[in-house]
């Protein structure tokens, strides 16, 4: 087991966003989280890299690293948690004052203190891999949304994280640009990256995931193999949600 999460809970003021969530992720597994907006999907994802601090919950990594949020957590521990994962944002969040290449190199050079020449070579490889070999020296505003998001993915990969987090990576994209981002993600899934994906692309989730979670109202309502959850859901709420999202006009 790569990571076991137990009893994850988070409130914003009186609003309980996550209520006692348990989750297991195996090494190389692709886990997709679906659910209506406001169900806590994004908040849960953000707990995995310290962007949100849970009120409760124990993170147990296979390598022995344990974080119990009910106890006082130190900054160092949060930093260690966040450095285990790479994150791809809905709105890309590329650094606008840096080129595509510099965006990808920033983490390895500044955070990991790797040699610049070596980091540059690797960053070039990564950008080629996501199909941007000819755009490396462009600034974010010179790239389309799909291209920016692919730089975002390369930036996350550059740190060689154990876990890749995707927060609705295609939600801000024009429909015709979604495919190019999904294709890159599919390639990563085939390369056995461990991935946690919040998405509204149900069909895509069905294709690449080993496990699908359906969340609603801060709970994980149902989880299992994509076929079970997406084709033969047991819970009424899952059925309702899938019906709405697959046939929006009915």
């Amino acid at each position, binding site marked *: 087991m790569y990571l076991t999460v137990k009893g994850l809970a988070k409130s914003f003021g009186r609003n309980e966003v996550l209520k006692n969530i348990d989750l297991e992720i195996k090494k190389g597994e692709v886990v997709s989280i679906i659910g209506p907006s406001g169900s806590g999907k994004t908040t849960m994802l953000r707990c995995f890299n310290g962007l949100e601090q849970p009120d409760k919950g124990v993170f147990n990594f296979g390598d022995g690293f344990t974080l119990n949020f009910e106890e006082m957590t130190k900054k160092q521990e949060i930093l260690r948690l966040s450095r285990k994962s790479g994150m791809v*944002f809905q709105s890309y969040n590329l650094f606008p004052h840096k080129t595509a290449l510099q965006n990808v190199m920033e983490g390895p050079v500044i955070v990991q203190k790797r040699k610049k020449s070596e980091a540059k070579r690797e960053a070039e490889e990564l950008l080629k891999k996501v199909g941007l070999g000819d755009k490396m020296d462009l600034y974010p505003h010179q790239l389309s949304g799909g291209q920016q998001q692919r730089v975002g993915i390369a930036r996350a990969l550059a740190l060689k994280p154990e876990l890749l987090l995707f927060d609705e990576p295609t939600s801000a994209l024009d429909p015709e640009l979604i495919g190019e981002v999904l294709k890159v993600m599919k390639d990563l899934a085939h390369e056995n990256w461990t991935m946690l994906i919040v998405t509204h692309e149900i069909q895509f989730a069905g294709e690449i995931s080993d496990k699908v979670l359906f969340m609603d109202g801060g709970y994980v309502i149902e989880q299992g193999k994509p076929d079970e959850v997406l084709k033969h859901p047991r819970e009424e709420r899952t059925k309702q949600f899938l019906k709405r999202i697959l046939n929006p006009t009915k």
Partner: protein
Amino acid sequence: MKMFLDNNLLLTITANMEGWELIINSLPSMLSGAIQYTIPLTLISFIGGLILALITAMSRLSKSRIIQAPAIIYVSAIRGTPLLVQLFIIFYGLPNLGINIDPFPSATIAFILNVGAYASEIIRASILSIPKGQWEAAFTIGMTRWTALRRIILPQAARVSVPPLSNSFISLVKDTSLASLVLVAELFRKAQEIAARTYDFLLLYVEAALIYWVICFILSLAQEVLERKLSRHIAR
């Protein structure tokens, strides 16, 4: 009767000179006041002030009340009191406590404190204007708060803050004329000294004004260049 100034450059200036002669003869003295005092005072105060402003802005942005408090009080005190009064407290007031500071350092201290307070608000606003997603992206590639600030946030905030900071800088050039009142022999004090001998107040003060104008004009050209340089990667 000829009245001589202590400054060697001014030996030739007299009360019955022609206007243009007076301007030409007083120019070297005024320019030396600008070069020896006005410009160094401006530069040192601005650079020192910016460092103080950055520290103040950071403590204002801290989550801890205890760290915020001194910054809030400092900014409020400086913005709430006249610059001239601050100058007088430092130069004429502190000697009562046995603290004697020379004119130039006195003025420098007052101006640094002033720039620090006003510019801290500009820097704070510029930092707050950078989208939260930039901080988050920096954290997710493993940066600490300080590294994120230095590498990601400040370079972007710098672009936002150039116009208002240039404004402060240009104001500062002109405010340094107040240093004449604590005996700093800067540009305007030179003008006053010459005018006191020749009674050509209008001519000499207009001449001083023109020199300030030229300095500020050059600075505003520099501002344009800097703005263009910093925004070349940003879509409009």
